[in-house]
């Protein structure tokens, strides 16, 4: 007999029930990460025998509620307000605070976007809840709490890579709601099922004047935010040296050449390269960036920190190019080329010109992609 079986089992939720999610929108369009978190939300709710309530805030967003239900929600709470057309942390935190106090969910999930990563902790401190950042797996389980000599259940097991070593940390907590953010791409959205039924309700929160203290002067959303990284069949990601030595010229040239051959190729960057200003944030692959699963992943001059691995380890074939044979990235790769990328990439680019497509199915060059690549 397991020794912990003699300890009392405590349902710590104290009546809190249900899973809440935030549907982040750009304009009126839900962002992919918001639909993705509906998958773990649905799974957790089914395991716990409860419902998923999604919160949709903005201007002219009501029409989207049906889509949110089709992607897995049971209930959508819509907050329509012209002042909320663009995300602002304070009024959005107010909406969640009121909804959490009213409906007392046991779990609340957010996409780990630049907005979700500040909104979730702000709410957590206000409603006295725990929040775990950048989760890759979300499960339900029991936890034997040594300090209280009790088995706590049903816990949200929020799993995230921990720093410095190749470890996954499981975080639990007994204050409701148990909150977590999940990285874009860490989960895949459920297929849209228009036969699903759900409840849509409007909600009017009570704002305080201070909630609108911050004013948005300008919003510039130049590109879709690197979404094509999620559909790419091959991703070539450069580390900081690719920025320092040639400003990603060779990495992008390889990708452009693949695109010209009709291959769905994209380029990414390590966090170090992004932080040094060589690539935009939306191209960052890794724990605090995007999680990608292309068929071929080419890591160019990347050391292989665990945060980076967290964002690409489910890729098909991994090819690493590094001049240091001891680079950690090689240990997480299938094929390693030991050499300076400035020597290797030009030869690779030549091979692609003469028909090599990394073993990806030969496609006739798409004129559209080719035109895009030439731009």
């Amino acid at each position, binding site marked *: 007999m397991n020794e912990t079986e003699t300890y009392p089992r405590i349902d710590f939720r104290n009546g809190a029930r249900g899973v809440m999610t935030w549907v982040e929108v750009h304009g009126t369009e839900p962002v992919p990460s918001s639909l993705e978190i509906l998958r773990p939300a649905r799974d957790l709710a089914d395991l716990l025998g409860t419902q998923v309530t999604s919160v949709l805030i903005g201007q002219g967003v009501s029409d989207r509620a049906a889509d949110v239900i089709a992607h897995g929600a049971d209930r959508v709470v819509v907050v329509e307000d012209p002042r909320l057309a663009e995300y602002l*942390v304070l009024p959005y935190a107010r909406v969640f605070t009121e909804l959490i106090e009213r409906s007392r969910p046991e779990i609340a999930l957010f996409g780990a976007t630049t907005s979700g990563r*500040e909104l979730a902790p702000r709410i957590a401190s206000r409603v006295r809840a*725990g929040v775990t950042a950048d989760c890759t797996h979300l499960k339900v389980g029991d936890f034997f709490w040594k300090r209280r000599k009790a088995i706590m259940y049903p816990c949200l097991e929020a799993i995230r890579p921990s720093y410095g070593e190749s470890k996954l940390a499981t975080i639990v907590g007994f204050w409701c709601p148990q909150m977590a953010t999940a990285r874009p791409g860490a989960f895949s959205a459920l297929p849209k099922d228009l036969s699903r039924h759900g409840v849509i309700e409007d909600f009017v929160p009570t704002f305080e004047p201070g909630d609108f203290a911050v004013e948005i002067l300008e919003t510039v959303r130049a590109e879709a935010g690197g979404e094509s990284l999620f559909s790419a069949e091959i991703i070539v990601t450069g580390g900081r040296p690719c920025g320092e030595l040639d400003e990603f010229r060779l990495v992008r040239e390889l990708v452009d050449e693949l695109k010209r051959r009709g291959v769905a190729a994209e380029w990414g960057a390590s966090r170090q390269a992004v932080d040094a200003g060589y690539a935009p944030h939306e191209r960052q692959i890794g724990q605090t960036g995007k999680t990608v699963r292309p068929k071929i992943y080419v890591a160019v001059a990347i050391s292989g920190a665990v945060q980076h691995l967290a964002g690409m*380890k489910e890729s098909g074939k991994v090819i690493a190019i590094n001049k240091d044979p001891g680079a950690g990235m090689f240990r997480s790769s299938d094929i390693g080329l030991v050499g300076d990328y400035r020597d290797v990439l030009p030869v690779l680019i030549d091979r692609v010109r003469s028909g090599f497509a990394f073993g990806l199915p030969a496609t006739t060059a798409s004129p559209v992609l080719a035109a895009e690549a030439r731009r």
Partner: protein
Amino acid sequence: MRLKVASLMKQVPLPSEMRTGADGLMDRTTARSTINHDCTFALESALEVKDRVPDAELIVVSMGPPSFEQSLRKAISLGFDRACLLSDRRLGGSDTFATGLALATFLLKLGFDRELQEPFLVFAGRQTSDGDTAHVPSQVAEVLGIPQATFAQEVDYRDDHVIVRRIIEGGHQTLRVPLPCLISVAPTARAARRPSIKGMMRAKNAAIETWNLDQIGLDASRVGLDGSPTIVAKTLSMARTRPEVTLIEGSVGEMVDRLVVALQGEI
């Protein structure tokens, strides 16, 4: 009224020295350490305010063991007026919620209190390299009850407000944030300046103001493991799912040839 500017700063282990202890928490006892990378940008943001408002009082604020003194002195050498450290063994095991509460309580004690109706600014780094959550700045702002802007790339101080350029997915946003407020700075902002000779001399003799929980009036039950709504249940080594790597060495032409062969018929 003298403008007060705080910069939150954490000292972190060098990346090469990180280990997890048997309890699943970070073992910081043996690692050599440095100022957290993102925090250096927050220091610079505060120094730039002082360039504009020479009368401003710059305070570097940290929470951690006495060994953080080396980084606090570094901040003094850059031009900070005071260095304040919250140090108490009972803070051990604090998660981001409890850390936010402790730092905010410390800031209130140091006069960063909106009830006083005096202008102030708090800067923080986007996130730390060891915790990697980016939670603490938002949680400090919430406890202080002040507006925030995170992922800031540019911060322009304008008397009673700041204009902040914030990174968002696929672009950026310009915000007008009234004082008092907290700004967390991304590492694409301006990098920290170098210390001056005069600054280094001053740093040598500067007093590091060290406070404990009793001195800031925070009950020990509200921090540490007792005050933290999250705990590390377990850590697991990531399972290795890939076969051993095939390392290819030689001339570039040979390497690429072998890569081409290796990928044939693979996909």
